[in-house]
């Protein structure tokens, strides 16, 4: 080579250019490692499941405000996670003020709104998301994917939990929001004598007072015509409801499930943890079991024309306090021959053929407190509600865990078994204490020796 210096300069420039390009490539395809305990920067398995079901490309157009740079970055970052999972999700970030034409075409008149579009074979389906977060986006993806909404009616008038109520202990507003995020439309109906025609699912969320005979018959007839009913019932189920469930071969145990092995810090042993969901019904169940604050067992008995199975059971170490002594504050100890050993069934799903190829379904959970605003976002409670509602109302179940909402009340989000809590205590308190004492002893001896 005649000009080695020139060649060296050219090669250096090329290497610098390659390095610069590599930096840009890495910047466009960042690799993530989410070390936050609640996996804040990772899409939930539920969102993955929804994205896997998308058949056609989906366009997401976000109209942001140039005045809110932080929010714009958060939205872009969230949507980048969707694109990472499914490259057929195409994202456009548009400044609303700079794109009035696009905003008019997509009927957007506010900042920080996302428009989700699916140009499928049967025309464009479009959804607006006003509050851009994972729940709302995934729900919109579900809707544009063509999965029709199911209208859920919460029956009111018998002491049931109200989906419009934001009260921490009484209300079930968070439960309603969780159902909406899963493509349900939540409404209420006073009494059960007349079920609205558009009802895809009727929920009895913890009634405490009896239903009228006409209401029980109406619910019975509705299920047998192919209707879908979800019953959440605490220990002490009203007699009329026991009668209704009995018609479908379900007997509430009128007991208390005691679970000493899986207790939350600071609670008694009456919070029963669901250890297992029936894998024939839920092939890929959520990993975190739901925690039922005060549950009763359920038993199946034969009824002609009704078929079904247990949906959820508690762990081996649980047992059923048959005469509910625990509620009286007595020291509850398992009594062989009287109380029943676990696993204890706490949820069932029954089906009734309704003719025309249709099928009525009735799902029952032996606890209603777990859908209260206080408890819904504890461990797997939200997943249990939504998965059960889907099993009862739909044929195509999305059972992967959802992103938990913020826990309410004074509960710790940490759920440990007694054995785990012992390990934590020994490793965090006893072991460091012993080490500290030994160090002090050695130091003292050395000083004396000196």
């Amino acid at each position, binding site marked *: 080579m005649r000009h080695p210096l020139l060649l060296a300069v050219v090669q250096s420039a090329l290497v610098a250019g390659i390095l610069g390009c590599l930096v840009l490539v890495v910047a466009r395809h960042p690799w993530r490692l989410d070390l936050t305990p609640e996996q804040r920067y990772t899409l939930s398995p539920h969102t993955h499941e929804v994205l896997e079901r998308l058949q056609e490309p989906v366009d997401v157009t976000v109209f942001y405000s140039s005045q809110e740079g932080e929010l714009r970055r958060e939205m872009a970052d969230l949507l980048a996670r969707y694109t990472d999972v499914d490259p057929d999700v195409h994202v456009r970030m548009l400044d609303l003020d*700079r794109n009035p034409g696009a905003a008019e075409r997509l009927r957007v008149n506010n900042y920080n709104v996302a428009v989700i579009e699916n140009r499928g074979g049967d025309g464009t389906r479009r959804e607006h998301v006003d509050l851009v977060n994972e729940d709302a986006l995934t729900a919109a993806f579900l809707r544009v994917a063509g999965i029709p909404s199911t209208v859920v009616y919460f029956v009111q008038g018998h002491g049931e939990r109200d989906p419009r109520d934001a009260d921490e202990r009484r209300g079930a507003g968070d439960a309603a929001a969780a159902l909406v995020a899963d493509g349900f439309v939540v409404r209420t109906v006073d009494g059960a004598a007349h079920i609205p025609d558009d009802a895809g699912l009727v929920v009895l969320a913890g009634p405490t007072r009896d239903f009228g005979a006409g209401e029980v018959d109406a619910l019975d007839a509705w299920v047998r015509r192919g209707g879908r009913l979800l019953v959440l019932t605490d220990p002490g189920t009203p007699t009329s409801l026991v009668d209704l469930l009995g018609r479908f071969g379900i007997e509430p145990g009128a007991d208390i499930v005691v679970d000493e092995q899986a207790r939350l810090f600071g609670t008694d042993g009456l919070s029963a943890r669901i250890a297992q969901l029936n894998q024939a019904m839920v092939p890929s169940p959520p990993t975190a079991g739901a925690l039922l604050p005060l549950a009763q067992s359920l038993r199946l008995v034969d009824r002609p024309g009704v078929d079904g199975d247990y949906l959820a059971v508690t762990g081996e170490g649980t047992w059923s306090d048959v005469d509910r002594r625990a509620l009286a504050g007595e020291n509850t100890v398992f009594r062989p021959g009287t109380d029943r050993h676990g696993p204890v069934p706490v949820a069932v799903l029954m089906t009734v053929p309704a003719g025309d190829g249709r099928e009525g379904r009735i799902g029952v959970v032996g606890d209603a407190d777990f859908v209260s605003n206080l408890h819904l976002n504890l461990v797997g409670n939200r997943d249990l509600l939504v998965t059960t509602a889907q099993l009862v109302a739909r044929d195509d179940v999305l059972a992967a865990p959802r992103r938990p909402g913020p826990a309410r009340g004074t509960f710790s989000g940490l759920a440990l078994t007694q054995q785990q809590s012992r390990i934590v205590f020994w490793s965090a308190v006893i072991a460091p204490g012993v080490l500290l004492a030994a160090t002090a002893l050695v130091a003292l001896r050395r000083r004396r020796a000196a």
Partner: protein
Amino acid sequence: MTLRGTVALALVLGVLVTYLALSAPTTQTPAVPVAAGPALLAVPATDVTHLELTDASGRLSLVRSPNGWHDAADRTLPSGVVTDLLDALTTLRPITMVDDAPSDIADYGLGADATRLHLVGSTDRPLLDLEIGARNPAWTGLYARRDGAPGVFLVGALLQWEIDKLRNTARAQSSP
């Protein structure tokens, strides 16, 4: 390294540049908030002697006299409506430079259908030539351009309020 190695490096660079060019993201650069600059009307409102407002509904020409503001038919307008508009112009500033070189000004409601506000001072000195377009989608401001410059900026929606007030008052004055 030989010439062959140099060519290989150039090829690698070419592949990378091509990939980057083809996979360019569609993210739009955010609009730039304008640093607090001068108000739309940089002189005191009292310096304005002639105001001309033109839009699809017609042309309104107002002249200041010792008795107040009057139109071409010599009808006197309540002085408040004009001074309110002029005061607004002395306080309003561009909020955001939306588009330096717009390709389609009709999207902003600018162009032939836009409202035009022309202010003149004594000795026929032009003070402001404002082209006012549509409200932004969120209705927090108006698109506008001034003094023949191509850049579109966003200005507070108060301006539309004051213009509507002036036009409605003038229309009420002229109706029999």
